């Protein structure tokens, strides 16, 4: 039922969850980046990514996951995401007029203006919105994974 450390689930579960992990992360990235076209966005995609990390915690055990992707690294990942968000919003001062103004509309980076009405969804639109979605997604993945990892480690100390 478990390996030599006494933690984690059986080898079948470990192999299959480590094979599924990249696919779930790709799906989470898809939901994050298409936030301005389909339902989704930063928090939703981030929650999917965090549940992938939680699946690894359940399959491999909290101590093993702490060694590989520790709480410190997840915390730093989260802080970088938050910083990118505020820095991009502050760029609104420098490039255009006010805080968090959409200064990328009309440029080549995410800058196309879509036609009004039904369209098949052009990814290159939205201005700064995909970048902000990505920053929020980074923050949510790092934050929720760190929270569940910390809770799992604290509960482990009782045993």
């Amino acid at each position, binding site marked *: 039922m478990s390996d030599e450390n006494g933690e984690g689930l059986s080898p079948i579960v470990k192999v299959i969850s480590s094979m599924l992990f990249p696919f779930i992360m790709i799906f989470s990235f898809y939901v994050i980046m298409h936030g301005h076209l389909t339902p989704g966005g930063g928090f939703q995609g981030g929650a999917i990514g965090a549940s992938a990390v939680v699946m690894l915690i359940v399959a491999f055990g909290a101590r093993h996951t702490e060694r590989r992707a520790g709480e410190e690294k997840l915390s730093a990942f989260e802080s970088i995401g938050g910083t990118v968000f505020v820095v991009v919003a502050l760029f609104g001062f420098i490039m255009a007029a006010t805080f968090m103004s959409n200064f990328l509309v009309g440029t080549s980076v995410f800058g196309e203006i879509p036609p009004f009405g039904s369209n*098949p969804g052009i990814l290159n639109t939205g201005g700064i919105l995909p970048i902000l979605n990505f920053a929020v997604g980074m923050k949510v993945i790092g934050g929720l994974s760190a929270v569940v990892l910390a*809770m799992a480690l604290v509960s482990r100390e009782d045993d």
Partner: protein
Amino acid sequence: MIYNIPFFAVILLIAVGMYAVIFKRNLIKIAIGITIVESGVNLFLITLGYREGGVAPIYTNLPSGVILPGGMVLPIPQALTLTSIVIGVAILALMLSFIIRIYQYYGTLDSRKVRRLKE
């Protein structure tokens, strides 16, 4: 009348949640009660935006024959609800962390035994 059923569900959810917060003694049930109240308020916000016969307010692959933009439901309550869900997740994570620490310190989850701060 059938379009008022979500509002009845809102009142039912908030009543059940408040009952759990006020009258239950187990700390985890209090946390669950707060989550139920929050679900009720989120349902209330989403129901405010409904327009009869409307579709989702998304332009990508819109079904044909929809009057723009009057044939869509309102998108702003959906943004408000999303913000509220995120805040609810953060509060739930915080409360569960507190419960873990309280259990480690006191050894019990009964809120009557945890009340060291009286008067």
